[in-house]
C-alpha cells in the first residue's frame, strides 16, 4: 500500500467494468492480506467519484463485504451507498451481512452498517433496519447512539406514520437527556428535521427540556451547539422571567469562535427579546450583540456577505445594535462588489444627524470609484441621505452638484434621479439648482433618468425660462421612447400648458404630444391618459390645473423599512437563506417550514400587535419562475384564511396534535397548540390583528435589497412613534 502512495491519480483513468470484474475474481483465488481486492475496489470507488456508472459490478462487489478488513468494508459500503437504491431486486443478498455487521464487536462497524442501511430506502432494508435501530439507539457506545439518532430521521422520511407507530420519536425524545452531549445534539438535529417536515410531528420544547439542552451546550461540538441553539426557537416562554433567564444563559455563546454559532445565538436572543419585559436587559443584550457582529466582518468575504445581509435585517428591528459603529462598514477599495453593496446599504441605514458628515464623505469617495454599479449606488445613497437626514441635506445637494459637473454620464443620470426625490421631499428649497441640472440634458439616455428630468421640467415649468425650448427638444424622440418616459412627457407638457397657456409654442407642443399619445400610440395607459388630459383641458382648464398640479404627499424614507410584523418573522430565520434574500423561506423554498412568533402571556404587547400568523402554506402546483439574482416569491402570497381551508387533512392534524401532547409539550390547551394560523390568535385580548392578511404586501417595494430602494410616499398614518416601539 505504501508503494502506491502518490500514484492513486492513475486510478482516475476511466476503468472498464469487465476488467474490474476479472480482477476481482482473480483476487478471490490468492490475495495476500487482501491487497489485490483493495486495489480494485479503490479503482472502482475512484470511478464512482468521477461519475462513471459502476452499478453493473454490484454482484461482484458485494461478494467482498465479508472481508475482515475495515478499509475494504468501508469501500463496499460506499459502493452500496451509491448503487444500493437502484438494485431493489438484488439488495436482499446483502441483508444478512448488514445484520451481522449491526452486531459486530467494533462500534465503528455497527454504526457504519446502520448508517448505510438508512441510505437505502428500499422496503426490505428499512424493515431490517427498523429492528436493528432500536437496539442501536440504546447501544453502550456513544458513537453508535449518535449515528442511530440521525438514522431515525431517515427512517421517518421513508414512512412517517410507521416510524411514529414504532415509537421512534419517543426513543429520540429520551435521547435528549443522554449523558453524552454529541448524542443529545444529534437527537435534537433529528427531531428538528422531523419537526420541519410538513407532515411531521410538531417538535416543541418546554422549559425543563430547554434547560437540559442548555446544560449540554458547553460540552457539544460547534455543530451540536448550532442544533441545540436553533431548537430553542421551539420553546415559547410563558413568563418574562423564563425568557430573560434563558437569554442570560445563551449570551455567553456570542464569544464562540465559529461564526455560525454566533449568528445562531443572535437569532435566539432576538427571538427571546420578544418575550422579555425588562427594557434595560433588552438594551444590554442589544449592546452585547454589536461587537460579535463587527468581528464577523474580519472573516473572509463569504462570511462577511452573509453577516452583512443579516445585520441589515437586525438593525431595522433593533436600531440600537451597532448604532455607533457605522465606521465598521466603510468600504475598502479591494472589497468584493457584493460586500461593498451590502455595506453601503447598512451605512445608509445607520446614518443619523450625528454621523451624516462622515457618511457623506465616504459616499463621495465611493462615487469616484471605478465600478459602475457601485458608483451608481453611492450617488443614489447621497440622495437618500439628503432625504433621510434633513440637517445634512444642504451638504448632500452640494455634493450632488459637484458630481453632476463631472459629466460622467451614469453619475449624472443617477444624480438627476435622486434630485427629483429631493425636490419632492423639500418643496421650495432647492429649486435654484434646476438650471445646473438642465445643462446636462444631453447626457441622459436611460429611461429612469429621462423620466425624472422630464418630471422636473414639467413640475417647475414656471421657474425655468427656456422650458418650452427644452421640452420641445426632448419631445422630438417621443415616439421612440419607452412608455415610462412617454408618460412623463405627457404629464409634463400638460403642466407646462397650465402654467403658460398663453404661449403659442406651448399650445403647439401640447397639441402635438396629445395627438401622438391618442393616435399613434398602442399603449392603452398612455392613450387613456392622453384622452383624459385632452378632455380635462378642453372642458375646464381650472380643474385640470387643480388635478395635475395637486399637492403631492410628502415622501420619507421611513416606508422603505420593512413592515414590523414581517421583520419579526424574518428574524426568526436569521442566518438562513431567507435572511440573505430577505424573503420568508416558505415562500421560495419548497418544503421549508414557516416560522412565526407564537403568542404567550409573556409576548410583549408591541410584538403581539404586529403578530403575523402562520399557516402551513400550500405550494403552488407549478414551478415559480425566477428572474434576477435572488429568488422571487410566488405572485400569490399565502393567505392565512385561504390556506387554512385546505391545509392538512383533519386526520393528520389530529394525529400531529395528539403526538405533540404525547411528546414534549405539556400544555393541554388545544387551541394554542394547533398549527393553523387562527389557533395562535385565539384568546388574544388585543382583538383581531389587521395586518395578518398579507404580511408581505409592503415587503417587495419596501425593501428588496438593492433593487427597489426608491423613497415612497408615506402610506396611511405616520410612523413617528415607530422608533420608540422598536426598542421593545
Amino acid at each position, binding site marked *: 500500500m*505504501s508503494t502506491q*502512495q502518490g500514484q*492513486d491519480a492513475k*486510478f482516475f483513468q476511466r476503468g472498464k467494468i469487465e476488467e474490474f470484474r476479472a480482477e476481482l475474481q482473480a483476487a478471490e483465488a490468492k490475495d495476500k492480506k487482501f491487497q489485490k481486492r483493495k486495489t480494485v475496489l*479503490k479503482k472502482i*470507488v*475512484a470511478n464512482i*467519484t468521477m461519475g462513471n456508472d459502476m452499478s453493473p459490478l454490484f454482484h461482484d462487489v458485494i461478494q467482498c463485504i465479508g472481508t475482515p478488513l*475495515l478499509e475494504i468494508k468501508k*469501500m463496499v459500503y*460506499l459502493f452500496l*451507498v451509491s448503487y444500493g*437504491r437502484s438494485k431493489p431486486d438484488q439488495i436482499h443478498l446483502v441483508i444478512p451481512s448488514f445484520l451481522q455487521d449491526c452486531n459486530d*464487536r*467494533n462500534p465503528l462497524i455497527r454504526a457504519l452498517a446502520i448508517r448505510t442501511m438508512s441510505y437505502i430506502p428500499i422496503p426490505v432494508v428499512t424493515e431490517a433496519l427498523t429492528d436493528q435501530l432500536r437496539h442501536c439507539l440504546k447501544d453502550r*457506545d456513544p*458513537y453508535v447512539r449518535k449515528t442511530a439518532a440521525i438514522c431515525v*430521521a431517515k427512517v421517518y422520511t421513508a414512512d412517517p406514520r410507521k416510524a411514529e407507530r414504532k415509537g421512534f420519536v419517543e426513543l429520540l425524545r429520551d435521547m435528549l437527556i443522554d449523558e*453524552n452531549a*454529541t448524542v443529545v445534539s*444529534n437527537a435534537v438535529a433529528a427531531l428538528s428535521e422531523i419537526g420541519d417536515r410538513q407532515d411531521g410531528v410538531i417538535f416543541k420544547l418546554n422549559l425543563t427540556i430547554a434547560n437540559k439542552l442548555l446544560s449540554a451546550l458547553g*460540552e457539544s461540538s460547534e*455543530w451540536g451547539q*448550532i442544533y441545540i441553539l*436553533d431548537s430553542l426557537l421551539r420553546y415559547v416562554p410563558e413568563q418574562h422571567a423564563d425568557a430573560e433567564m434563558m437569554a442570560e444563559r445563551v449570551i*455567553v455563546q456570542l*464569544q*464562540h*469562535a465559529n461564526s*455560525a454559532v454566533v449568528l*445562531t445565538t443572535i437569532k435566539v436572543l432576538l427571538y427571546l427579546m420578544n418575550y422579555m419585559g425588562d427594557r434595560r436587559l433588552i438594551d444590554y443584550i442589544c449592546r452585547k450583540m454589536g*461587537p460579535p457582529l463587527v*468581528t464577523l466582518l*474580519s472573516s473572509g468575504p*463569504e*462570511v462577511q456577505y*452573509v453577516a452583512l445581509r443579516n445585520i441589515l435585517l437586525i438593525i431595522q428591528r433593533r436600531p440600537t445594535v451597532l448604532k455607533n459603529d457605522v*465606521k*465598521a462598514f466603510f468600504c*475598502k*477599495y*479591494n472589497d*468584493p462588489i*457584493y460586500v461593498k453593496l451590502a455595506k453601503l446599504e447598512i451605512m445608509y441605514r445607520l446614518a443619523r444627524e450625528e454621523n451624516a458628515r462622515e457618511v457623506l464623505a*465616504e459616499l463621495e*469617495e465611493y462615487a469616484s*470609484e*471605478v465600478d459602475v454599479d457601485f458608483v451608481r449606488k453611492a450617488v443614489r445613497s447621497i440622495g437618500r441621505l439628503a432625504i433621510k437626514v434633513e440637517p445634512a441635506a444642504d451638504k448632500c445637494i452640494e455634493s450632488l452638484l459637484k458630481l453632476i459637473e463631472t459629466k460622467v454620464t451614469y453619475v449624472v443620470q443617477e444624480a438627476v434621479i435622486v434630485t427629483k426625490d429631493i425636490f419632492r421631499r423639500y418643496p421650495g428649497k432647492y429649486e435654484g439648482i434646476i438650471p445646473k441640472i438642465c445643462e446636462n440634458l444631453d447626457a441622459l439616455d436611460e429611461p429612469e433618468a429621462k423620466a425624472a428630468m422630464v418630471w422636473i421640467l414639467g413640475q417647475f415649468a414656471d421657474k425655468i425660462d427656456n422650458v418650452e425650448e427644452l421640452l420641445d427638444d426632448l419631445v422630438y424622440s417621443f415616439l421612440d421612447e419607452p412608455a415610462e418616459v412617454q408618460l412623463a412627457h405627457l404629464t409634463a407638457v400638460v403642466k407646462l400648458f397650465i402654467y403658460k397657456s398663453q404661449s403659442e409654442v406651448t399650445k403647439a407642443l401640447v397639441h402635438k404630444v396629445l395627438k401622438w399619445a391618442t393616435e399613434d400610440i398602442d399603449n392603452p395607459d398612455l392613450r387613456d391618459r392622453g384622452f383624459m388630459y385632452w378632455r380635462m383641458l378642453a372642458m375646464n382648464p381650472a380643474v385640470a390645473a387643480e388635478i395635475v398640479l395637486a399637492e403631492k404627499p410628502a415622501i420619507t424614507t421611513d416606508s422603505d423599512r420593512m413592515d414590523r410584523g414581517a421583520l419579526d418573522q424574518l428574524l426568526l*430565520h436569521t442566518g*438562513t*437563506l431567507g435572511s*440573505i434574500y430577505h424573503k420568508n*423561506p416558505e415562500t421560495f*423554498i*419548497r*418544503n*421549508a417550514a414557516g416560522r412565526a412568533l407564537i403568542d404567550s402571556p409573556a409576548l410583549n404587547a408591541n410584538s403581539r400587535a404586529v403578530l403575523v400568523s402562520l399557516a402551513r402554506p400550500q405550494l403552488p402546483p407549478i*414551478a415559480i419562475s425566477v428572474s434576477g*439574482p*435572488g429568488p422571487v416569491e410566488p405572485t400569490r402570497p399565502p393567505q392565512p384564511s385561504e390556506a387554512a381551508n385546505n391545509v392538512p387533512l383533519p386526520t393528520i392534524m389530529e394525529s400531529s396534535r395528539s403526538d405533540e401532547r404525547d411528546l414534549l409539550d405539556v400544555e393541554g390547551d388545544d387551541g394554542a397548540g394547533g398549527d393553523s394560523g387562527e389557533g395562535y390568535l385565539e384568546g388574544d385580548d388585543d382583538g383581531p390583528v389587521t395586518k395578518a392578511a398579507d404580511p408581505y404586501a409592503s415587503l417587495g417595494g419596501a425593501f428588496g435589497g438593492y433593487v427597489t430602494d426608491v423613497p415612497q410616499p408615506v402610506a396611511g398614518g405616520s410612523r413617528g412613534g415607530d422608533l420608540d416601539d422598536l426598542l421593545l
Partner: protein
Amino acid sequence: MAIDGLIILDPTGRPIIQSSYTTYPAAYPLLHIEALNNALAKAPREGSVDPVIYVEELSCSSACCHVEVGGMRFLATISGDVDPLIAFAFLDAFTEILQDYFGVVSVATLKDNFDIVYQLLEETLDSSGHPLTTSPNLLSDIVLSPSLISKLLASVSPATPGVPSVRQGGSFGSNGASGAFTSPIPWRKAGVRHNHNEILFDVVEEMRGIVGKNGTTLVSNVFGKIESNSKLSGTPDLTLTFTNPNVMTDCAFHPCVRLQKWTRDNALSFVPPEGRFILADYQYRPPQSAVVSNVPIPLSLKANMDMGEFGGTFALTLTSRLIKVMENLELKFYLGEDATSAQCTLSSAGSSVGSVGSADGSWSFNSRTKTLQWEILNMRSSGSWILRGSWTSKIKAPRPAHAFQIRFEIPSYSFSSLKVDQLRLSSETYKMYKGVRMRSKGSIEWRW
C-alpha cells in the same frame, strides 16, 4: 438545517470529488456545478460572484455556497431553510482537515488521496447534511492520515513507542477505534502520550485601517488571534493568565475555553485539543480613548499625484513611525483598466543608518492586473523611502484607484502589548515546555 453535499471542482470547473448525493436526482449536483461555472464565466472580474448562488430547477430550489481553495472551488449545496454560514463554516473546517491530513491542499494531493478524502467526507458530513465530527483530533482515530498509514506499515509492530497514540484503527477487529467518542471531552481524544510535553502560543495581531485623503485615520482596528500548538499528554487542565487582559475586547474562544471563568476572572481555563488550534480571537481597543477607538497607524505615506492625459506622475514618500523594523512592506496601486506601462525610480533619505540604499526596495508593474507594486523588505525607523514615477494609459482621462493598499509585518511586536503572566498546569504532574511569540501585521488602505 442541512447541507446537501460537497463538491470539489478543479480550476477548469470540472468535479474532482463529490459527496454521494444519494437522495437527490443525478442531475442535482450537475445543476449546481453548472450554475457556479456560469456565474464565474459571466463575472466581469475575479471575486465579484455572489458567494451564495440561488439555483432554481423544476422540482426544488436550492443554493450553492462556494469558496476558492488552492485554485479549486469548494462548493456546498444547501436546500431548505439552511444557514449559509453553516455551509461556509463547514467548508472552512473541511479545508482545515484536508490541510491537516495532506499538508498542502491542491488538485494533485486530493487526486492522490481521493480515498481518504472520500472517507473524510463520509465521516464529517452525514448524507442528510448534518455536519458530524470535524475535530481533527477525533477524525485521526477513524480515518488514518497518509503519513500515519506509511508509518504504521514501516514499523514492524504497529505498537512501536514512536507512535503510541495511534491505535490500529485501520485494521479489522480493533475494538477501541472509537475511543475518541467515549472521551468525555469532544475536542480531545483520550489517552494521548508524549515523551516531550510542550505547548506554544503565537499571538498574531492584524491591523486593518483606512486613511482618508487628508491623512487622518478614518478607521483602524486591530484583530488579534492566539494560535496554539499543543503536544501534551493525558488530560492537561491549563490556566493562562495575562498581566493586562483588559486590552482584549470582544473575545471569541475555542470551544475548549471555559467561558464563565473568563467572565469572572479574566483567565483562560481550558483543556486543549491536540495539535494546532486557535485558542482565542479578540479585538484590541486602546484604553485611553473611549470615543476615538483608532489605533495609531505605524507608518505614514505622502502622495503627490499628478493626473495628466493618457497617464500621470506620482511621488510617494513612506515613513515609519515605529522603533521596530517593519518587514515585507508592500504597496499596491491599481492604475486602471487601460494602464499600459509604468516607470519608476527609488530613493531613500534622512535615515541615520548609512546603508539605506536602493537595494532595500524594488518595484514592478504587473500588466495583467494593471497594478504597480512597491516592496521594501526591511524598513527601519526614522527613514523615508521614496518612489517617483509615471504611468501611461490608453485613454485620455485615466481612472486609477484612489487608494493605495499597504501591507506590512512587524516581528516580535504587538499593537496591544498583550503580556502573558503565567501558564499553570493542573491535573497532570509532568513538566512542560511553554513558549509565547508575538507577531503583527497590517493592511492599510491609504486614499489620495
